């Protein structure tokens, strides 16, 4: 009986999955078509298939350089976000006062501000102190993305028993040690989730880096937009470029997914 229901679930899942995959089928197949092939029939299989798009796209994107930039920016920003926002969430969650409730709302409300309305003052301010570069960008990502991360962490922290803090405190650990050695490891599944969400956001971000980064620090999306002129959109290159740039993220996701596991707090308290 149990067997059958999981089979049904698996089949339903697979069907929905196909629906989800269809656009990717389009991206993948069209990336192997000639420009003419793409517009002759977007839905068909590539005929004739060509790998040229990948070669050309790889060159046009200065792939190695821009991949390096993308990697540096994404990894550093995400690390910064994870550390800082889990710390903040920990402080807020373990403190039951009006103040911390208010601060949380402050963080949350910051997520509602339309980016475009702060864009010009923000870059003006950062330009004023010569921070329009990678490092400034990372700091901006911290400012923009910490709120969601704090919000996510904050919800999970409530399921980590306070007894964990207490036990560690009794053993002489200070706040930092408690956070770092006891709490953070137990947040792993959420950390991975936060990492995934932030990585995809930062990896694909175009607008902010386009305002902030000097040319030598260009990321993949910035290079990619050279394919999108006002009139001529070079879809054959863009699709190949997208495929190239999305592979690292998918690999990361598949790798990271394993950490989103059940029962991190099992066995902690009676």
């Amino acid at each position, binding site marked *: 009986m149990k067997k059958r229901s999981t089979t049904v679930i698996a089949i339903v899942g697979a069907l929905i999955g196909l629906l989800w995959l269809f*656009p990717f089928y389009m991206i993948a197949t069209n990336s192997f078509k000639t420009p003419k092939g793409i517009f002759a029939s977007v839905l068909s299989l590539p005929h004739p298939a060509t790998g040229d798009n990948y070669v050309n796209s790889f060159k046009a994107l200065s792939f190695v350089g821009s991949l390096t930039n993308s990697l540096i920016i994404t990894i550093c920003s995400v690390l910064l976000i994870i550390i800082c926002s889990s710390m*903040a969430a920990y402080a807020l969650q373990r403190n039951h006062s009006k103040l911390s409730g208010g601060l949380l709302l*402050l963080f949350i409300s910051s997520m509602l501000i339309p980016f475009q309305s702060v864009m010009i003052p923000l870059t003006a301010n950062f330009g004023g102190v010569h921070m329009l570069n990678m490092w400034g960008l990372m700091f901006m990502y911290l400012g923009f993305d910490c709120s969601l991360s704090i919000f996510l962490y904050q919800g999970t922290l409530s399921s980590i028993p306070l007894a964990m803090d207490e036990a560690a405190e009794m053993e002489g650990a200070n706040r930092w040690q408690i956070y770092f050695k006891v709490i953070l490891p137990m947040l792993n599944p959420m950390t991975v989730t936060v990492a995934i969400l932030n990585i995809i956001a930062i990896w694909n971000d175009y607008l902010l880096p386009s305002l902030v980064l000097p040319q030598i620090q260009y990321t993949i999306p910035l290079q990619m937009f050279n394919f999108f002129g006002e009139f001529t959109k070079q879809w054959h290159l863009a699709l190949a470029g997208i495929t190239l740039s999305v592979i690292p993220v998918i690999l990361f996701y598949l790798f990271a997914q394993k950490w989103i596991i059940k029962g991190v707090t099992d066995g902690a308290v009676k």
Partner: protein
Amino acid sequence: MKNRSLSFWLFLTPTLVALALVVFIPMLEGLFYSFTDWDGLSFTKMVGFKNYITLLQDKAFVNAFWFTVAFVIVTVILLNVIGLGLALLVTQKFKGSNFLRAIFFMPNMIGGLILGFIWQFIFTQGFDALGSALHLSWLQNWLTNETTGFWGLVIVTVWQMSGYIMIIYIAYLQNIPNEVIEAAEIDGASPWQRFTKITFPMIAPAFTVCMFLTLSNGFKIYDQNLSLTNGGPYNSTQMLAMDIVNTAYNASNFSLAEAKAMVFFLIVAAISLVQVLYNRRREVDL
């Protein structure tokens, strides 16, 4: 942690500083500009509430507002139902569940602008082909009017974001202690009862977060709007964010755009925060 304690503030400092410098100070500047005739570079005079009065009379803004509200209502419901549904689906134990998890999430790995293009093809060609093959007229002529534009946006948004919502739900689902589920099984709860009585109440924080996210993202959505319909036809599918952006860039009326942004912020903040405060009350500490 006492809020008088040093560590409380030390833990909060990095994010508070970043938030202030990156979001709040620029926003206050923006607020200031909304009372001027700022053009994005400089301003010549203070204009008081002129911009706020203008925006109330701005039909496009009001239209965009209602269109966005309808969009938000539909997507909030769909995203949470589907996102949670997918999360429940892929947290079942069966072969390939991990693989499916990746598939459902994949749409997020590609930026909204590019997806708009892909989906245009699906709507204009895929739907047309399907519609004529199945003799379903409603599948044809998508994105050519307000209704199909609306549902087109809904479909793309749901398709893309439900994976996002899903992984948030997954993260919280995995946090439910096993023993509680076991206890419910012993108490004789069916899977559905387990879900409504145990799982769902225990992932209340996830619900709060996801409600908030879908709500605020629904209001703020821009990329999909731009790439799929670009507000068209005849600006009928233009949403709030796009209206603000267009006011600023196409019409070069930055101060009016800032005023719109402030009004937008107030409205969305009021709705979302009420939602958060309401939901938080249902959460429990373990």
